[in-house]
């Protein structure tokens, strides 16, 4: 489970987050290896988005560490974030910019220099055939086009780790299939992805391993075969497994 340089691309080490009296994430430990797609699933309020926001550097952990390719996010945030591509659950982007300008801004934030910047932007816009909309202001984009723009922005600097909160919400079926293939290809090329989703069919199609989070704790983890063995349901879908494990643990 280690990268060529000896580190997993993502390691959460006893990560906790407390909001006042409420413990949102409790001593969460997990690793994502190069080439691996890891899906974090769980009911609403289980701590998935909080975990993802801590990995993206938007929340400060109350305890524990986030290591990206062995780099401590708390100690060296700029180095660690440079390896990360993040797609939030709500793809809000600057309304008064065009899509192309937004991608240029993100490329500059991640220090992607010209002419590589322009080449990458054109290449990525072609992925979702967004070229025609790219010069219109984002305020006129549909939810799906904003999501596509956020996905493209996360890939601009060729990250090693992709962290995605709800990857296909708002996308039309064709774009959802493209996104699935995009994530798979990203992993095949050695990248790692942590997906956080309620779309269990999508998770079943792309994920190598699944982690089930309830009340801030990782209660089950493994590939589909391992989860089926543990549940005693040899042919169960991820949806059936999810229902099995969550019903077994009433909150």
């Amino acid at each position, binding site marked *: 489970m280690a990268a060529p340089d000896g580190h997993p691309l993502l390691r959460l080490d006893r990560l906790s987050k407390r909001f006042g009296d409420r413990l949102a994430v409790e001593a969460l430990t997990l690793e994502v290896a190069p080439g691996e797609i890891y899906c974090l699933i769980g009911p609403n309020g289980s701590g998935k988005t909080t975990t993802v926001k801590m990995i993206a550097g938007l929340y400060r952990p109350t305890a524990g560490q986030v290591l990206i390719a062995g780099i401590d996010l708390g100690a060296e945030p700029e180095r660690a974030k440079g390896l990360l591509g993040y797609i939030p659950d709500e793809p809000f982007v600057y309304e008064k*910019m065009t899509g192309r300008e937004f991608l240029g801004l993100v490329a500059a934030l991640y220090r992607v220099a010209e002419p590589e910047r322009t080449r990458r932007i054109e290449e990525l816009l072609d992925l979702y055939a967004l070229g025609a909309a790219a010069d219109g202001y984002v305020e006129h984009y549909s939810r799906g086009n904003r999501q596509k723009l956020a996905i493209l922005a996360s890939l601009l600097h060729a990250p090693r780790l992709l962290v995605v909160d709800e990857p296909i919400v708002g996308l039309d079926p064709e774009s959802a299939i493209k996104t699935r293939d995009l994530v798979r290809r990203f992993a095949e090329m050695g990248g790692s992805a942590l997906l956080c989703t309620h779309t269990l069919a999508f998770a079943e199609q792309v994920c190598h391993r699944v982690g089930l989070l309830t009340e801030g704790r990782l209660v089950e983890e493994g590939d589909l075969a391992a989860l089926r063995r543990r549940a005693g349901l040899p042919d169960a879908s991820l949806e059936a497994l999810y229902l099995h494990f969550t019903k077994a643990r009433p909150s």
Partner: protein
Amino acid sequence: MEGSRVSVVLRLLWRRLDALEKIVRDREGAKLAVIAGFVVLFGLVMAGEYFVFRQGLAEVLSIGPPSAALTLYILEAFLALVLVISVVSFVATGLWTFYRASDTAFLLSTPVPLADLFWLRTAETFLLTSWAFVLLGVPAFLALGASHDGGPLFYLWALIILVLFMVLAGALGTLLTALAGIAFRRYRARTATLLATVILAGAFALLIGRHVVPSPVDFYLIFEPGIPNGKPASLKFIEHRFWFWPSHPLAVSLFAGVRVSTAGSGALAAAAWVLPALALVAAGVIGRRLFAATLPIVTEGPGIAARPGARRAAAGAAFPRFLRGPVGAVIERDLVTLGRSPHELGRAGFIVFLLALYTAILFVAPLADALEQPETVARLFFLDLMAVGYFVTAFGIRFVFPSLSLEGRGAWILFAAPLSLGRLFLGKLLAYSTILGLAVGPIALGGALRLVTFPALLGVFGLLLALLIVTTVTVSLAFGVLWPNFSEANAERLATSGGGLATIVLCLGYVAVVGWLGGECVRSVLAGGSVLAYLAAAVALSAAIVAGAIAAARRRFETLEIP
């Protein structure tokens, strides 16, 4: 039918006040403290204005017979100035509230008639822009009564005049907003707002420069002792000077209420009532029709009706175009989004317009004799620095303080990126200071040139202005970091939050100290002394505030979280 129409408008207006009502009902301590703070601040400003007005009017009274003409001139000029500020402010805000308000699409989908929407927008814009009447009008009218020993009847009369004046200004603002809306309906929103504001502000500035600000010759006429045809020549001159200002009948009526005089006539007294009523009817009939004709065109497309086939901005162009590096890209984004937001651009333009107006008045005011007195020069220098500092603070609180909070739901973009927030802070400090320096510097230095011509004192003014700008921008940025609110997208509400109030208090306190040091510099130079001690004190104070603010912001960045 009319009853239900009024009730719909009132109900929609009441929705706007829900937030305020909730704060009071739920006894939200922090917000109540902010509101109380602003009430106290406004109260202090109004009390200060009252004492300055009362003292000034008492001085005028003490000069004997010419005081009547001078008092009338002051009233005419004052009402004309407040009218201009109110109308320009109304149009700049109205082009947004009438045609670009976020709930327009929703309201158009409901059975609310367009006429009701028109009255709703009129009332909203009036409430948003009526601060000038309360802040400037009330203390001035009270001071007029106090300095002239006015009885209860005078105050009742003054209240009636104030209401008539508010109706007049609101109606003229509505009419001009509707006219600007239809005239610029084919333009993009920002171009329309900019054009309307610049045209109106330019026209009014010209009128004020030519007719309101007195020249030395005017003073000779005001002090003219002749009484041809039973009316003093000085009063005739003033009435002739202001006859076409819509505020003229009201100024004369107010004057007649406080001075036993021969100013005005029966027709003019009637005009004080008829003119506001006519303006209101015109706004209701013409304004409403223009609004109904304009709104569908405006809401059809982006901006104030995009021209068919209009080219979208910067198609295919790379970004960033002018600035380099991550921090440069964020600053260029700030500038690009400001340039594309007509509302924000209008607000920035309005602040610069007010500064330019103030400077123009300073330039044409008959100060030649007064500037012969070193003590007067020192006092005016102090007041000028205070005035410029006030405009810089207004810009800081409105545009710099909210800059972090306005990242809003898009804050993830910056905070998830490998961007040094400390460097971003310093980059924004440099950028906003430069912009303010370029926008305010030449106008403020022009005003200072009117007061002092010594190169040394101009240098002092330049240095103090630079300190004012850098310190105010630093405090505004740092306090924005200390008290961010990513869920509030309205810059005006952010500016009036607790953090905004703290920024205003600190900045204005600092401006007062720097202004005082500036005045002392003038006294010292004109007495042949040195300014070094005063400048060193200003530099030390500014450096301490800047260093403290940056340190506090850096500490806050270490714990800041993005919801």
